[in-house]
């Protein structure tokens, strides 16, 4: 897609905003609509846009398959790990109140933040790798 100068310039301007918006949705989910799932999808969509305009090869050098596979499993691991840590600290599985013995609210905050991060990592990695799988096969 070397010939579409307008597309390349516009996407170059838009892409940081899309990725920033994904992070905003991720970490602002406590206060407004949104959360890990939506943020992961938006992040994945941003990377898909990059791959469409700048080529699959460039996108795959930024997000190599091993990184995506690592991200997919890391997110689930973070989520389940938070549950197990709260179990070890004397609470219920996924009972985040146990993460902070003195202020259960703070523990809840931390737990939700970590869990949403796990969801976001898994969802974005899965979305990107599904798109790469389709596009790579269709070349």
């Amino acid at each position, binding site marked *: 897609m070397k010939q579409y100068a307008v597309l390349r310039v516009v996407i170059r301007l838009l892409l940081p905003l899309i990725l920033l918006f994904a992070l905003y949705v991720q970490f602002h989910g406590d206060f407004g609509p949104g*959360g890990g799932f939506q943020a992961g999808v938006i992040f*994945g969509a941003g990377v898909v846009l990059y791959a469409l305009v700048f080529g699959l090869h460039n996108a795959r050098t930024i997000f190599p398959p091993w990184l995506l596979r690592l991200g*997919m*499993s890391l997110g689930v691991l973070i989520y389940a790990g938070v549950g197990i840590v709260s179990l070890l600290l004397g609470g219920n*599985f*996924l009972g985040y109140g146990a993460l902070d013995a003195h202020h259960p609210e703070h523990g*809840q905050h931390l737990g939700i933040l970590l869990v949403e991060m*796990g969801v976001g990592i898994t969802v974005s990695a899965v979305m990107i790798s599904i798109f790469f*799988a389709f596009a790579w096969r269709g070349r």
Partner: protein
Amino acid sequence: MVTAVAVIRMRDLFAIVMLFGIYSLVSAGLFVVLDAVDVAFTEASVGAGVATVFMLGTLALTTSREKPSSRSPFLPLLVVFITGAALIYGTLDFPPFGDPNDPIHKHVAPHYIEESGAEIGIPNIVTSVLASYRGYDTLGETAVIFTAGIGVLLLIGGARRRKPPTSDKDSSP
């Protein structure tokens, strides 16, 4: 509704995918009208955005025309009518929409609305329900996404090996 009928009538799969995207966007607007902003957000980003891209990717791998079916459409039509009639019959027992005395507003919802500010301490009740009260469900959802990713990677993700056509007979037990 209009898009659904158009999807049924059309044979061009590319247009159908686009209509599905429009349908998702319209339902996202519907969810906003119903004050379910989180659901609308998900529907707009997943249904209208990423799912459309994935279906287009599938079309690029296969073909974009639907094959005309040779079977008679009456048996499937009958099944669909019976199922739809059963579902509509089921809705007759539902409590009236928006009534504050509905069972769904009496069970755990008051607890979430009144206590989650003190128990969890974050303003968005949807997030506290999703990530804390119903943490198991969200863990399951994440596992589902993970499994879907693994499935796609196993099916079409690997490096393409060009096997000679005779190797099938040798490898079969």
